[in-house]
């Protein structure tokens, strides 16, 4: 066998065999699993090196971290600033501040945090009430006989009070019966439930209400079918502060 044949041999040899090179050095060809192991170790070393040497170094945020940005800095402006420019900028600022003062609700508004089950009543910068409420449970009800499905979430977005209702009467929808293990009634008069919604209700559209409850102990938990429940005293306050058109922000 010539030397040339021997030198090319290790790459063609089955893994695990021992080969002797032309110079008499013993080479052990790693088994296939051994090669994988080596590749894995190498990959781990590379990842370790990358992860160990990359990332973020933190320091307290200071003014120097927030330079002027896209607007000109004072040094850039120096030498070309006239009093006209400054007064023009002041005028612009006044105009923007006037616009800003007209932004947002001008009257009392309601904020509902449906995940934390909190309700706030605010007027401008003042918080008039902040309390627990109950929003949608998030449960899913499946009616396998009618192929229907309901997801009991409170909707998000901006709404308005459409109607204020004293002593509301609940016209129970189909899911309310199915949830109690009964079929929906044929006679519509069997759907009316008196007193279940408390003393007052604020209708904010699509069948959603802010109302009271018979189960005050559950206030603060996600328990409703999409409406928002309040305790008796809180409901009174909210009801008397709100009027048709009052904005309701739900997030």
């Amino acid at each position, binding site marked *: 066998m010539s030397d040339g044949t021997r030198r090319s041999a290790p790459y063609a040899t089955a893994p695990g065999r021992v080969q002797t090179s032309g110079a008499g050095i013993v080479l052990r060809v790693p088994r296939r699993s051994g090669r994988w192991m080596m590749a894995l170790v190498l990959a781990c070393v590379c990842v370790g*090196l*990358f*992860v160990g*040497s*990359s*990332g*973020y*170094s*933190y*320091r*307290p*945020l200071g*003014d120097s*971290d927030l330079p*002027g*940005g*896209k*607007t*000109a*800095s*004072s040094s*850039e*402006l*120096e030498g070309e*600033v*006239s*009093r*006209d420019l*400054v*007064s023009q900028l002041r005028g*612009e*600022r006044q105009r*923007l*501040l006037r616009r*800003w003062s007209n*932004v*947002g*609700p001008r009257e009392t*508004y309601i*904020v509902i*945090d449906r*995940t*934390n*089950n909190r309700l706030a009543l*605010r007027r401008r910068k003042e918080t008039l009430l902040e309390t627990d409420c*109950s929003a949608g*449970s*998030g*449960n*899913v009800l*499946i009616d396998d*006989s009618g192929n229907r499905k309901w997801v009991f979430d409170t909707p998000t977005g*901006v709404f308005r009070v459409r109607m204020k209702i004293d002593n509301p009467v609940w016209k129970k929808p189909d899911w309310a019966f199915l949830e*109690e*293990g009964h079929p929906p009634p044929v006679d519509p008069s069997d759907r009316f439930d008196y007193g279940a919604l408390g003393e007052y209700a604020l209708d904010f559209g699509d069948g959603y209400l802010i109302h009271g409850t018979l189960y005050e102990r559950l206030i603060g*938990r*996600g*328990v409703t079918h999409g409406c928002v429940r309040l305790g008796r005293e809180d409901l009174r306050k909210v009801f008397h502060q709100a009027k048709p058109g009052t904005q309701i*922000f739900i*997030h």
Partner: protein
Amino acid sequence: MSNRSRFKPLALAGVLATLFGLTGGTDVVPSSDLAAEAARLQQENAQLERLLELASGEEPYLILDLRVGSLQLGLAGAKLAEYEIQSVEIGTPSVLFVKREPSAGWHSRVWNGAELTPRRQKKRHVIEASRIDLDDPSYDPPIPLTPEQAVPVPRRFLLRFEQGLVVECVADDDGEPGLERNPVWLSGIANWLRDAVDAARPSGVPRLRLHLRSTDAAALYRGVPEGTRLLVLRGASEPGSLR
């Protein structure tokens, strides 16, 4: 020359100087005070414009007000919630020991499309109407969950914005009962990996780390809507915040 006539030219010069001062706005004044004032006004106006842009949009937004140390959630100009910030840190990225300085003016823009990491997952009960039997004592109706039970909150979570800014929120104490207590080493490795990958991204944007009380961190995690926008307000702005 009498005293009176000696002062006449001086008085005239004074009147002229005053008049010039009152009317003279067209010539260039190389005053650094004036330049600083103009720069400040420009920045404040730019911030006000961005605030107005946020308030007139349909998406919810966060305003990180560094002057008062607060993070406010707003929608259409209304304040939805406010979270107190204990401290803010800035993280500069480095890749393979090489530091990358953040691009200038990274903060003076509106960041869009916040995504929570890890994603908020609400537990839902699926109820089949045919299996409901309130008369059967073995039937076990689902018990309504508290917010802590419904949405567990990680001790550390990220708000990732579309253009690359990442705001890391860290709960500083254990007061909130709903905080998830994953094994430290496990979440530590995952965070380490994620940070390295983030730092290697070519956005040139630093990372912000907000330290909050655990109750505020939990309320933020549960309450912030996906797709929220963000504006960072610098120190000297007015109105500065929604309050």
